[in-house]
């Protein structure tokens, strides 16, 4: 009988998992503040009291959350060594994501901002989001310069949002503006002041599913009615992405702000070609500029000014079918890599780049387009 040496594996995955790219900018990584007193302590007593009443995640839903993930929305291997929730420790995220995958920069997208969607107290909204932003700047941006932050602003009050953007725009590491998508038309003039500030300050506006879609008051509803299960909710996120992109185009936002960049994170992108075709067809058939005020085809606006993140990369049984989508969206311009770490449906950079994406697109999707999109990224790349 042969006896082999048995070695215990190390506690985590510190093997080298760098993809075959010269850089890697991960445009959707999630931090989590678990000790909410850090945010509350930055708020006025009155506003903090509102936070206590409303809760910090998904408070004031129209009913108990009906679309909870059956086995939890977080990666099971991303619990911290001390038992902290996934995303709660910048050191552990560095150890699990930045170092093994060779991440050049990770854009932090705080989903906790979405709690404000159903809040009626707009002062509390502003104070809570400012507290969340300051806590993340203090705890995450100082932990590693590779962390970059999408600061969160109110979707309810453009003036408050602009004030917050102006307050933090020059903080090193602040690279984007995160707006939790509310049940409003994003092209409406009420929000144009925010887009003007974003354009002026070279900060792209980033949107990400909130988890409240079809469930939380003042979050977007899905066409077809309330969903019944988590899978329905997860699939339908593409729907709210489509509605928002169409809203921006037809609301004239790109006409008015031709240097504004939008990032749609985690809404998917395989729906983008059909949306562009339908927008173009309607634009042409209804009289173009004369009817909608748009002077160029919607597909051009989208390719010039909207970026989509790769995760969750669709997985057709025949992967070649994705090539047609890459071609139609001009993926070398419009797609940005994202892992969605540490959420349950995260994509592995090594697998995505080495096995799923066409080789000629790798560098563009890994970092090239991200550097162009996030004007304040400040990274050292070829």
């Amino acid at each position, binding site marked *: *009988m*042969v*006896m*082999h040496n*048995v*070695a*215990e*594996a190390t506690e985590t*995955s510190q093997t080298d998992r760098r993809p075959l790219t010269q850089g890697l900018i991960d445009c959707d990584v999630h931090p989590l503040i678990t000790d909410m007193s850090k945010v509350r302590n930055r708020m006025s007593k009155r506003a903090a009291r509102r936070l206590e009443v409303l809760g910090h995640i998904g408070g004031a839903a129209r009913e108990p959350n009906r679309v909870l993930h059956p*086995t939890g929305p977080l*990666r*099971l*291997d*991303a619990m911290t060594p001390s038992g902290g929730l996934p995303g709660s420790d910048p050191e552990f995220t560095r150890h699990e994501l930045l170092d093994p995958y060779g991440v050049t920069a990770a854009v932090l997208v705080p989903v906790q901002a979405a709690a404000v969607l159903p809040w009626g107290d707009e002062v509390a909204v502003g104070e809570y989001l400012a507290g969340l932003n300051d806590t993340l700047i203090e705890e995450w941006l100082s932990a590693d310069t590779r962390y970059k932050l999408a600061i969160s602003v109110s979707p309810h009050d453009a003036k408050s949002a602009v004030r917050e953007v102006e307050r933090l725009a020059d903080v090193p590491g602040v690279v984007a503006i995160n707006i939790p998508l509310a049940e409003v038309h994003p092209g409406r003039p009420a929000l144009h002041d925010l887009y003007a500030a974003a354009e002026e300050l070279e900060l792209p506006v980033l949107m990400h599913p909130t988890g409240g879609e079809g469930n939380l008051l003042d979050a977007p509803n899905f066409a077809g009615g309330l969903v019944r299960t988590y899978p329905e909710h997860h699939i339908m996120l593409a729907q709210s992405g489509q509605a928002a992109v169409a809203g921006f185009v037809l609301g004239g936002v790109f006409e008015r702000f031709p240097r504004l960049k939008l990032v749609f994170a985690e809404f998917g992108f395989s729906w983008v070609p059909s949306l562009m075709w339908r927008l173009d067809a309607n634009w042409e058939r209804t009289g173009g500029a004369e009817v909608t005020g748009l002077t160029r085809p919607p597909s051009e606006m989208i390719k010039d000014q909207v970026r989509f993140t790769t995760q969750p990369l669709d997985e057709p049984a025949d992967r070649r079918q994705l090539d047609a989508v890459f071609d139609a969206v001009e993926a070398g311009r419009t797609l940005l890599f994202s892992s969605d770490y540490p959420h*349950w*449906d*995260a*994509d*592995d950079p*090594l*697998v995505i780049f080495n096995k799923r994406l066409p080789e000629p697109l790798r560098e563009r999707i890994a970092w090239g387009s991200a550097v162009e999109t996030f004007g304040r990224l400040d990274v050292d790349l070829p």
Partner: protein
Amino acid sequence: MPERGKPERTRVGTLADFAPDTFRIVQVDGNSIGVVRTRDRFFAVLNYCPHMGAELCRGTVSDTTLPTNIPFDYRLGYERSVVRCPWHRWEWDMTTGEAIGKTTSMRVATYHVEVDGDDVYVGQRRKNSAAVREAVAS
């Protein structure tokens, strides 16, 4: 060299080393393998999810709902023989290596486990998973 007539195997610990439903990750011939003791059985699977390469054994050991074509028909089965990937929650039957509900033709590699006195050994990779399943069922 292996002794004639005996499968090659690797000692991976004693019975006391295996807490219930908790994977112990061992390196055998360069492979990372998760060994787990459930209520009444041992399983060993390659610590690699065929879907996207996650370290599978950082996931959970559990029952799961039986495949059904009836919506909202929740009945548990696969008593403590399912490993659920920590990433995308793909579920694999550790007795056969097959995906629960045969949702994919991909398989997780499984290995023989032998208990010899107090010692636990990982043996050769299982070759015919369907046959193993029949043997377990019988």
